[in-house]
């Protein structure tokens, strides 16, 4: 209701809040709190609402210059609306057009490319194109359009226990960043006490530089929905949700259309294919926040509340949506399930013969590369092979200074270490991670100190604000580098330790990783005391 208010008259007023409270039964104070949390609800919008992306890929492309250009061109600071109400400007992170950075959103139109900012200023944005995704596998798995054959087999041949056993045996490490085995999560949820259970697909791909889930949701929605249904079957849930991002305006309508189609084909709804299994899916869109990618914050956002993180235990497997046992899986993780249902755990492991890690992985590259798009790759390839052979190295004669892998909380690998293999264990040994699979290159022109400020600004802005180390610590860390003065390394590292050991969730505890990479590999370029 609050989002509708913004769509309607550009802002959330107290009347809107009171109305929302009355209709929903949520206390007025709580509605106020919700309305001050999400990006989409905070900015007063003009007739034309321009959102400029401040994500890492866009930063890597321009060093931040595109943001300044738009601000200057429109004569507005982010968060402002022109006096005549014609135009407003806001930051946004990330639009998922990292292949063509910088990206700008005008209303629901997303434009990208070096001249996109200029078009945003004049109001002549055009929808940017999205490059086709590519699979390196002999038989594509994740890029192959979902056809529900996995679910058919599960329903007719496997049964829930056998399906669960296959998924466990397959050791599917979560693709969202934490890498937690999905089968284990499913097992806990299945065993948890409760009549009603839920599956939630985490489509909140907030990582700047990542557009993998965007492709999955918008180009292969059936595969995602099938994965959800399989999870429901294995766990004993009758309903699933996909939480999409408001920064990806196309995801929800595309998924909803796919749900409609599936229902029409008897693949969702009551008594699917005559098996007695009921399962249906609701698509929910977020309201502009990165941290709701964390699973407990996600569930809060799903229920319309402030997206703050909750202490675990209890884990969602025990108490999740509406207090019921819930599986929260990343979209890509779920997209892996149809293959396992159809072909089994062994075949799944065989997809990555050169690695301990199983299955295939979608990776995506940023605009700096010659051939940026989403690629389906096996684990175990070297980073160098991925960057130079698959993505064609950097354009315009630039060379790689470093790459950040897996998202803003991922470690940063310097060019000298590009022979590291792309898999969970090898990357972890280098202080990096597979994370969500984005590969964001910083070229040789990159200002490391500016990059440090960029990462910390993102971290501080997106902190949910609940736990003290992250809420205050990230702000302090940012401020240390944002001022034009040398930074005391010892003090900074003490702050990093506090964040790593004290934070409530991976946002705060993960932020030190890329910073430690920079300290390790580029100490002289950080402006330390």
């Amino acid at each position, binding site marked *: 209701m609050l989002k509708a208010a913004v769509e309607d008259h550009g802002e959330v007023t107290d009347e809107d809040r009171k109305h929302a409270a009355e209709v929903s039964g949520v206390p007025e*104070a709580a509605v106020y709190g919700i309305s001050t949390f999400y990006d989409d609800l905070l900015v007063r919008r003009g007739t034309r609402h321009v959102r400029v992306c401040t994500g890492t890929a866009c930063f890597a492309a321009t060093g931040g210059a595109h943001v300044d250009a738009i601000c200057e061109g429109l004569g507005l600071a982010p968060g402002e609306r022109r006096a005549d109400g014609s135009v407003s400007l806001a930051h946004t992170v990330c639009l998922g057009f990292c292949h063509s950075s910088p990206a700008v959103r005008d209303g629901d139109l997303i434009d990208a490319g070096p001249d996109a900012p200029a078009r945003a200023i004049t109001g002549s944005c055009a929808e940017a194109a999205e490059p086709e995704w590519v699979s390196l596998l002999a038989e594509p798995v994740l890029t192959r359009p979902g056809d529900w054959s996995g679910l058919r087999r599960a329903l007719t041949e496997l049964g829930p226990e056998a399906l669960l056993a296959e998924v466990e045996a397959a050791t599917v490490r979560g693709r969202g960043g934490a890498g937690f085995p999905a089968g284990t999560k499913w097992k806990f949820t299945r065993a948890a006490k409760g009549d009603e259970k839920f599956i939630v697909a985490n489509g909140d791909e907030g990582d700047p530089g990542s557009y993998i889930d965007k492709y999955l949701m918008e180009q292969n929605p059936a595969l995602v929905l099938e994965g959800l249904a399989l999870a429901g079957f294995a766990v004993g849930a009758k309903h699933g949700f996909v939480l999409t991002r408001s920064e990806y305006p196309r995801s929800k309508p595309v998924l909803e259309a796919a749900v409609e189609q599936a229902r029409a084909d008897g693949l969702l709804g009551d008594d699917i294919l005559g098996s007695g299994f009921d399962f249906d899916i609701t698509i929910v869109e977020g309201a502009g926040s990165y941290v709701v990618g964390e699973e407990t914050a996600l569930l809060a956002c799903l229920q319309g509340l402030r997206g703050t993180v909750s202490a675990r235990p209890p884990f969602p497997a025990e108490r999740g949506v509406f207090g019921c046992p819930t599986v929260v899986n990343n979209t890509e993780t779920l997209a892996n399930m149809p293959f396992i249902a159809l072909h089994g755990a062994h075949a799944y492991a065989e997809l990555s013969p050169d690695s301990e890690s199983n299955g295939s992985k979608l990776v995506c590259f940023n605009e700096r590369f010659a051939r940026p798009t989403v690629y389906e790759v096996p684990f175990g390839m070297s980073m160098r092979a991925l960057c130079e052979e698959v993505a064609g190295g950097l354009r315009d004669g630039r060379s790689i200074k470093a790459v950040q892998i897996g998202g803003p909380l991922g470690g940063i690998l310097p060019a000298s270490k590009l022979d590291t293999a792309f898999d969970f264990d090898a990357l972890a040994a280098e202080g990096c991670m597979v994370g969500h699979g984005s590969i964001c290159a910083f070229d040789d022109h990159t200002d490391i100190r500016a990059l440090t400020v960029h990462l910390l600004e993102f971290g501080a802005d*997106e902190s949910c*604000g609940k736990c*003290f*180390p992250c809420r205050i610590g990230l702000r302090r860390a940012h*401020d240390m580098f944002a001022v034009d003065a040398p930074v005391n390394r010892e003090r900074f590292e003490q702050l990093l330790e506090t964040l790593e*050991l*004290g934070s409530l969730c991976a946002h705060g505890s993960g932020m030190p990783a890329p910073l430690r990479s920079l300290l390790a590999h580029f100490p002289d370029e950080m402006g330390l005391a």
Partner: protein
Amino acid sequence: MISVTVDGTELQVADGATILTAAKQAGRWVPTLCFDERQAPFGACRVCMVAVEGAPKPLPACTTPCRDGMVISTDDPVSRRVAVAVVELVLSELPAAPAPHTELAQVAGRLAVTGEPRWPGAVHQVKHDFRHPYLAFQHELCISCGRCVRACDEVQGAFALTATGRGFGANVTAGLDSGFEESTCVSCGACADTCPTDAITEITLLDGVERSEANGQRAI
């Protein structure tokens, strides 16, 4: 009942009891800021960190349940280091030192957090709300521990308070940021009672805001 060891002492605790409960039972002090025994544990302040044998990182005592055979150390140096750092950070975001009787001041004192903060920087914006006859809100002293919101929800059930904003700008307010009287507040004072920094406190306890005690006449 299960058996745990706290700082070398073995004791029996109820199944599902938190490490904090066990520590209290053993008479060992664990610093806390966002904890109030009248409310469910919240896990926000991260000051109650303790070391548990076998765990790679310090764990928060208030939200971690005991397991049979757990060996807990409340004064482990790494955990204390984190606690001290967090308290330093919290003190650094307030425009003024907390009054000596507040829980924050007492915890800081006991943790020996003194001297110049290592990470100074921006402080909260000063915003006072003295409209209510009894409850005073000094927003700049709020450390977003959530205790007042939980007191209002879990103890009284008036649901008049909410956390607001995000990140460093996070704060707490009543109703639609309209003051206590305009909200669903029933003036029970549970929020003032639990606040560890006196961000919400009884107006009569503030100097400089005089209250005439006769016949409900407010004199400011």
